[in-house]
């Protein structure tokens, strides 16, 4: 393997990793802040991909501009779901919650199959399909844009969570919801927005995924597994760690795919995940709280 190949593989991996981080961020937010294991994450993600496909392929919208209505719709639906059932579901025990979200997964997946069938679809990304070259290296513009938008979004989210009072309130809810309520934070209102953001970000993940790969409604569990991989590796509580985890997974996949037959990618990556869970279950997250 020469240096040029390494650089190309690294570049491919980082771009793929950027997209993977985009897949996981909505899941990470809901799990980290609201302690919700959103099993329906990938179904919402693929639903977002399908809406995005309609906007770009059928209505002819610009592939970058078309992302915004999908994310806004995801946020709106999230707020609605929280207002109607989500706020009650979070009070139930974790088993009930997982089952409830599995129910939502089946519902969303079934709706997607009824509307769009099980056909595999590819978004016609138009001007984003060209290759961008850097010396002897070349990358699809669609991947550069998908990864770049994800990084921008995640840095923005990180800055919101760490530099603003609203972000501090979100982090406070994630760390001690009772005390957050005691200091006067409207926990229900903020939780509703976070839930909306979680689904909006899942829809965003669907758009960047659809920008770079073909997809079909019933294959979303694969992306759920990938999202969990990124979230577990990154640990909870930091957007930037989720981004780093996505990039690492992307780079590993890129190199493993080059060095080993394709079917080994899952074995190696999930083997590493199992090992990580054994030796460092908190992922990249630090544990800081001091005991009395």
């Amino acid at each position, binding site marked *: 393997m020469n240096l040029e190949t390494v650089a190309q593989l690294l570049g491919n991996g980082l771009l793929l990793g950027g997209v993977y981080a985009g897949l996981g961020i909505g899941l990470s937010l809901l799990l980290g802040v609201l302690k919700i294991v959103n099993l329906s994450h990938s179904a919402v993600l693929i639903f977002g991909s399908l809406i995005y496909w309609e906007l770009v392929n059928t209505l002819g919208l610009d592939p970058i501009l078309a992302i915004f209505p999908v994310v806004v719709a995801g946020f709106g639906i999230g707020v609605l779901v929280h207002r109607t059932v989500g706020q009650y579901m979070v009070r139930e025990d974790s088993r009930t919650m997982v089952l409830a979200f599995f129910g939502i997964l089946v519902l969303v997946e079934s709706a997607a199959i009824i509307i769009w069938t099980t056909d595999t679809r590819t978004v016609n990304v138009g001007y984003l399909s060209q290759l961008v070259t850097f010396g002897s290296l070349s990358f699809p513009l669609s991947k550069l844009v998908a990864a770049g938008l994800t990084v921008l979004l995640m840095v923005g989210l990180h800055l919101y969570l760490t530099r603003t*009072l609203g972000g*501090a*309130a979100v*982090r*406070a809810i994630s*760390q*001690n919801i*009772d*005390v*957050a*309520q*005691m*200091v*006067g*934070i*409207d926990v229900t209102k903020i939780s509703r927005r976070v839930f909306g953001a979680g689904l909006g970000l899942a829809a965003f993940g669907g758009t960047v995924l659809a920008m770079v790969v073909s997809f079909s409604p019933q294959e979303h569990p694969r992306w759920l597994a990938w999202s969990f991989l990124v979230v577990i590796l990154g640990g909870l*509580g930091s957007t930037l760690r989720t981004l780093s985890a996505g990039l690492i997974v992307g780079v590993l996949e890129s190199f493993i795919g080059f060095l080993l037959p394709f079917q080994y990618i899952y074995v190696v990556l999930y083997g590493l995940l199992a090992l990580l869970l054994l030796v460092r279950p908190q992922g990249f997250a630090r544990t*800081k*709280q*001091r005991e*009395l």
Partner: protein
Amino acid sequence: MNRLTEPDNLGASLQMAEVNAGYFEKDLVLNSVSINVRPGAVTAVLGPNGSGKSTALRVLSGFLPARQGKIWLDGEEISALSPGERLSRGISLLPQGRSIFPELTVEDNLVLGAWLLRHNKSELKSAVEAMFDRYPLLKGFRHRVAGSLSGGQARMLEFARTLIVSPSVLLIDEPSVGLAPFLVDEVYDELERLKGENSTILLVDQNVSAAVELADYVYTLAYGENHLQGNKDSFEGQLDGLIQQWLSL
């Protein structure tokens, strides 16, 4: 001392009158309990485990609704108000156990404690600085994550976070629980300071002798009902007997 049958009216700033409350439908933790929190004084609520002391604080702060009975603040009925609304009227709860945001900095913990002031940035900032002036030790830890503080430092941060909105009534639940003995002294020094500032305090504590020594007025609960009440002096010389009695309950 006398057995309480009717809530008295001694100009209390916060009053709980004949309140029933519980966590489960068929379970009554408080049964017709009445407590008057007198302005500018320390009122202690004592009793054995499970007598309903902490539940009374949850009801007063709005985290547990009263099924029956009423809550009054300076003559205004507040029974139907949410915890947030009660906080904005000056009722602030310092719960038992750790109540910090461990991964946020000390400063962020204080800023969030002043959440009610969030629309007035300068007021919020000066409230935070006032707390750093009051607790100089915390100033040195301003940018440190709160989870790294020692038990005593964390307790001081919790006091600061509770006091930052200048509450008119402080509800304090088991402030010394889980702390090393020398830290318990620090906590009671702080309570003495608050008393010296004429703060209105309702204190629940298992540390009976320290609580009675600090208090101006004492209530005892047993089996979720009012048991005894009286001025601190009326409990003197009877604490050992009282504790023996609770241990046998």
